């Protein structure tokens, strides 16, 4: 597709890390089908790093490519590193996105961050419990 870079096309055609994680450590769900796109990210955390990342996405080619790229970028990184993955970084790694598709990269970064926040919330409870 002329509007998409080759990397977008490659990730769209062969998305990495599609799927769900049983008993994930965190879940991040963003968007809704009314607006067009919806992404759910599942993460597994080990030693403060993302040991595994999976996603499910309802949306356009860009949304799927963004999900795939974001999951790749996040895998193996520390939680703090992942929190620094911005929409711009995802779009850059994809060699850019068309103007009207930039919101997809927002969703990708948001979903990742939400999954980590979700993990931290669960984990904090754990920690708090530990401390007690």
């Amino acid at each position: 597709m002329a509007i998409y870079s080759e990397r977008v096309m490659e990730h769209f055609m062969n998305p990495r890390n599609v799927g769900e994680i049983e008993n994930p450590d965190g879940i991040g769900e963003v968007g809704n089908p009314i607006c067009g796109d919806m992404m759910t990210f599942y993460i597994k955390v080990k030693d403060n790093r993302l040991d595994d990342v999976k996603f499910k996405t309802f949306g356009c080619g860009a949304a799927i490519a963004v999900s795939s790229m974001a999951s790749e970028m996040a895998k193996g990184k520390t939680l703090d590193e992942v929190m620094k993955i911005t929409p711009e970084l995802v779009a850059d790694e994809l060699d850019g996105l068309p103007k009207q598709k930039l919101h997809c990269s927002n969703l990708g970064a948001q979903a990742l961050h939400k999954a980590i926040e979700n993990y931290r919330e669960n984990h904090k409870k754990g920690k708090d419990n530990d401390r007690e």
Partner: protein
Amino acid sequence: MKKVYLDNVSTTRLTVEVRQAMLPYFDENFGNPSCVHEWGDIAKEGIESARNQVAQLIGGTAEEIIFTGSGTESNNFAIKGLALAHQKKGKHIIISAIEHFSVLHSAKTLGKWGFDVSLVPVDKYGLVDPEDVRRRIRKDTILVSIMHANSEVGTIEPIEHISQITKESEVILHTDAIATAGTIPVNVQKLGVDALSLASNQFYGPKGAGALWLRQGVRINPLIDGGVQEDGRRAGTENVPAIIGSGKAAELAYDSMTTRIEHLVNLRDRLLSEIPSTIDHVVITGHPKHRLPGNASFCIEFIEGEAMLMLLNSKGIAITSGSACTSRALKASHVLIAMSIPHAIAQGSLLFGFGIDNSSEDVDYVLEVLPPIVEKLRQMSPLYSKFLKRGK
């Protein structure tokens, strides 16, 4: 790779005869029809014979045909030109909720200019109820514009009934026949309309060639001012080759309409019956009977249209979608929404537009290629997994 063009809704491929008819006008017959010399004469004769061909296609007279640069221009010209020419009588116009953007946004512009615009709703098949038009007509209503058929869902509107109502009320009736003229029989007298838009690239003619048919005696303001081309109603050097092509395309469409329709209906009906029987959770959009012969439109639940288009394209199949993601405005098709289809389902819109070059093998190929694509995307879809877990 096999290549299957099934997007004849967006535009069609010129027939060889049309292209052949145009070529001399890019070559030695390059004159400007307004000019007083041989080159001018040849160009002028060419466009006048095209005018006859186009008039014949829709049962009008040649003097009633105004050539424009596109279907969109014809619609703008009709809506704005008729409203401005008749505003002394009133400033109220009526259009349907499923008009093409060229009508909708022209009406919106009129709104900015102090006109009042009423929208007529449609039912779940996309059909306008003529009585809904009647109810909206007021003393100051000057114009009603209802499309002859909606290309996105294929529904054909009851223009003959609507024109009885507009005639009783002495209101001008325009119809956007861009999806129908050259495809199904269109006769301005039978329809009872006062103005009708058409575009040649919808029936195997060139782009850049639209026309507005305007009943003799109906006043209109030009959209494009300047010279006296098209009887002073549409200025600018005529796009001679495109006009010639539209004339030839009109002639061919007129002559072979019955066989073309038969061919399209066969292909369309196969797809309309076999896609829902091959793929679960599919909604057919548009009217089951009052439907354009080449139009097979669906919503595939739980997945999104653009992604399907891209995977189909990777298999050589070209179609279109009314999903929000394929629109630059990122809004789901106003047509599907007006038909009360939920947003999430509208996102899965797919539109197959058959053309005269398509064959039964093309349908086979779609039926082979589409199900795994749907499956692949559903496997990725959080909506689908939710559905599997909890039901809808």
